[in-house]
């Protein structure tokens, strides 16, 4: 497996989310099928219902493009769900399917990738 991109930043606090997604899209263009792991504050990128009023480029629009780019390996760190106090129902509208991973699975995921980039 190629590259794992770890999303740990809030969607609009800095450019990390957007910059990481740009890398994910370009890797997909190169047929490298990147994996994305959402951890900690990064989970807030997936709460599309709370981003309606943002003046910035909407993260949700990029997520909508994932199926077109064949970006299908989306993982969410289960421990972060509790830590961020997120109701899983809020992820129902995501345009992509995701897998919940426990701590051991997160470790395994990281071991299974050649490159890891943390944003």
């Amino acid at each position, binding site marked *: 497996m*190629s*590259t794992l991109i770890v999303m*740990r*930043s809030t969607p609009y606090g*800095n*450019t*990390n989310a957007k*910059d990481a997604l*740009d*890398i994910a899209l*370009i*890797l997909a*263009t*190169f047929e*490298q099928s990147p994996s994305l792991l959402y951890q900690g504050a990064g989970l807030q990128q997936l709460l599309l219902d709370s981003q309606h009023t943002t003046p910035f480029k909407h993260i949700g629009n990029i997520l909508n493009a994932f199926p077109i780019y064949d970006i299908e390996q989306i993982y969410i760190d289960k421990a972060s769900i509790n830590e961020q106090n997120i109701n899983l129902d809020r992820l129902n509208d995501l345009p992509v399917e995701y897998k919940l991973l426990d701590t051991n699975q997160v470790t395994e995921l990281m071991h299974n990738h*050649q*490159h890891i*980039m*943390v*944003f």
Partner: protein
Amino acid sequence: MPAMNLLNYCIIVRCGPDQQSQALSALEFTKALLAQGHNVERVFFYQQGVLTASRLRTPAQGELNITKLWQKLQVENKLELDVCIAAALHNGIVDKTESERYELGAHNLASGFQLAGLGQLAGATIACDRVVTFGASQ
């Protein structure tokens, strides 16, 4: 010295030149790789890292000029110093071509650096054994 497995590396610099210890670590790590005989496929400047490539940076006398240090390393080792073009434009780092394209009237990309697309980074993840990032903010 035991025989060492020589690898192909890509270095990503995401911190600005003012984040001194991280910016310097990226440079020193690259130097150490080259000294040990590893190949450095390319150094890719992304996010705030692109500010390293401004030839207008003028640190006070006695202060470290990380731009000049990269330029020196580039000349000595024929290093490829790629500056993400999207981040560069966003941060006001332009070469002659982009300056003319956007009619900016000036250009400031330091010699030895070149503007490049994210495709160069994607290519590096395919070609390189290791991709090492410096200055990843949390």
